[in-house]
């Protein structure tokens, strides 16, 4: 009994440094931010400190700006997740084959992922530059465009440019997940199917895809959750422009905090983003559970 108690105390003392750090760095700020969503923390307001109830949540959810940001964030999330998943799967299927140089290819596939987001953003900003960008130069020489285009100067193409920049960097992550799953697949099943006369597409559709379903769901969930909070690429490449065409929820929250100095609005946006992400995650997990139940 005494030994158990002293072991308990020892356990607590060993864990306490981590607990203290987590409390001060994670939990306390989360709680304080939550409080900010209910209290007027606009630093230039005359009514700072006043309890506002659900005022900020209601005004955010009923503002056209919030839903416009939401729409743009969803567009970006869906498009870039789809691109990464599909292209990642295709590349993984390729890298799963055995041919000369495949090991080298597998190694260099990781390079885009290793580049810091800030560097990636600056890189693509230069590529898409309307006056001297490489993309314009190549397309012009291929006679695909008649003159240099301002890719980042139009709201629609700017958003697509950011999707490309993000997909290029993060596809290797999807490739790794799919490749790992594929490597565990029993080759004998393929051979049996080939003997039965099944072609490439049929083998893929009937054997590979169902096997990869859980992996696909994991990749999609992870990427969606990450992308909903996207900020750094937008900050580097377009700063929310042109004409707000690339302003996401997170970028708007940043502006509200650091430019407008309205910490309540920013905190509310942050919590709304978190709530949406949790809802998406729960939905995906439900689908995942259903999916894995089906497999059994």
């Amino acid at each position: 009994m005494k030994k158990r108690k002293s072991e308990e105390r020892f356990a607590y003392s060993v864990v306490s440094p981590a607990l203290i750090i987590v409390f001060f760095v994670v939990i306390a700020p989360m709680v304080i931010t939550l409080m900010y969503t209910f209290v007027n923390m606009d630093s230039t307001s005359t009514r700072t400190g006043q309890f506002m109830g659900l005022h900020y949540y209601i005004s955010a959810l009923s503002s056209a700006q919030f839903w416009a940001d939401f729409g743009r964030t969803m567009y970006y999330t869906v498009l870039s997740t789809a691109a990464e998943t599909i292209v990642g799967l295709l590349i993984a299927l390729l890298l799963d084959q055995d041919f000369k140089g495949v090991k080298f290819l597998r190694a260099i596939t990781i390079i885009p992922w290793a580049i810091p987001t800030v560097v990636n953003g600056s890189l693509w900003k230069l590529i898409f530059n309307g006056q001297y960008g490489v993309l314009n130069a190549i397309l012009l020489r291929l006679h695909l465009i008649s003159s240099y285009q301002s890719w980042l100067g139009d709201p629609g193409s700017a958003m697509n440019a950011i999707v490309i920049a993000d997909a290029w960097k993060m596809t290797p992550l999807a490739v790794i997940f799919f490749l790992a799953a594929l490597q565990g697949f029993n080759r004998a099943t393929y051979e049996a199917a080939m003997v039965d006369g099944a072609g490439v597409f049929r083998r893929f559709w009937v054997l590979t895809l169902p096997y990869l379903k859980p992996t696909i769901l994991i990749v999609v969930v992870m990427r969606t959750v990450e992308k909903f909070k996207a900020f750094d690429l937008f900050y580097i490449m377009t700063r929310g422009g042109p004409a707000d065409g690339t302003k996401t929820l997170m970028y708007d929250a940043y502006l509200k905090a650091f430019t407008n100095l309205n910490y309540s609005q920013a905190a509310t946006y942050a919590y709304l983003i978190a709530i949406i992400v949790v809802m998406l995650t729960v939905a995906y997990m439900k689908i995942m559970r259903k999916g894995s139940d089906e497999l059994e």
Partner: protein
Amino acid sequence: MKSLKSIVSIGLSALMAVGMAGCSGGTNGGGDTSAKKGVTLKALFMKQAGYSETDINAMTKDFEAANPNIKVDLTFVAYEELEPKILTAAKTGGYDVVLGDCIWPSQFAKSGMVLDVTDRVKNLNVSDIYQGALDSTKYNGKYYGVPWLNDVKYLYCNKSMLSKAGISAPPATWDELIADAKAIKDKGIVQYPIAASWSQAEALICDYTVVAGGFGGAFVDANNNPTLNSDANKKALSFMYDSLKSGLTNPKSLEMIEDDVLGTFTSGNAAFALNWTYMYNESKDASKSKVVNDVEIEPVPGEGSVKSATVNGGMPLMITAGSKNPDEAWSYMVYLSSKDVQKKYCKDALPIWKSLYSDSGVISTGGADLVKVSNTQYQYIVNRPQVSYYSELSNNMQSKLQSVLLGKEDAGKALDELQSKAESLQNG
């Protein structure tokens, strides 16, 4: 077992103690000097533009030599990091003296981030300081800083392009500028004669302030009430849109900020450009510019009864509200902005003191052309609205103005919407 546990416990406690000491002692390297008679000031400056880091270090060394009981710790950051750093440090005095953009004093004053220095400013020789520069630190009739880094936008012309088109003198009005640009374009000298910084950033508002001012418009009236949808402002915005539509302003301007305008001008792809003082030295640098001998700097044109109007882009020095040493901070600021120091380092940035513009030393170091045009231009400085909600208003203006310039919205309607937004911000 027991000895192992005690070893681990002691080890952990030691680690925690070191960690805590590291945390608190971190930035306060000068913690022990402030415990004695001396004072350590922490000052925040900007990299890149205006006075160089070397210059500021030299100025600070001289100040420390003249004031042996004060030490100054300098920090240099990029412009984008200035505001967040000031916001997080202002109330706790993480920095005593900070360099800010002239659009921040109103907001900082209202949120209690910087000190009211009206009484101290009165002791300076204010009549010798350009009014526009001094006013940039004013809010509700009180002063919250000292102007230090002087900057306005000028009109830059490519002399050889103008003479090839048969234009003998730089344009004095915006209409003349358009006519000149058209002549240059028609003769095939350059595809897009005008380069401007119209991306969704503060740069766009700076340019709009210049053009609107030239047309006699203002964003707020004398009582700081918004006047965004005045006829003059609408005319100025339509003017900017028309210049894009007629192919006179480079369409890539919508993704450019000032550095991109510099690149376009120095590579010989623009005949006219609006930009800050730094472009003058950069475009005369043979290692970076192709137009070294063709650069001409002129006052910005006006229109009608307005001779000229330019936007104030200066950066004042301010004392944070949380500073423990406001008196020493003030003496440091006064030293940095004093006539002698500004005269010595005028190659990088021109002084705030009117009398220095006729000083032969300043003229030879700063460059005769630049000093001459500045002396004229500084009399026509327009400040962006000095209201506490300026930053939020600017964000709204940036996206709406871009909509108009992209042809997605009508200028009049957009400005009407901005006016209502400004009014609601004012009352909010």
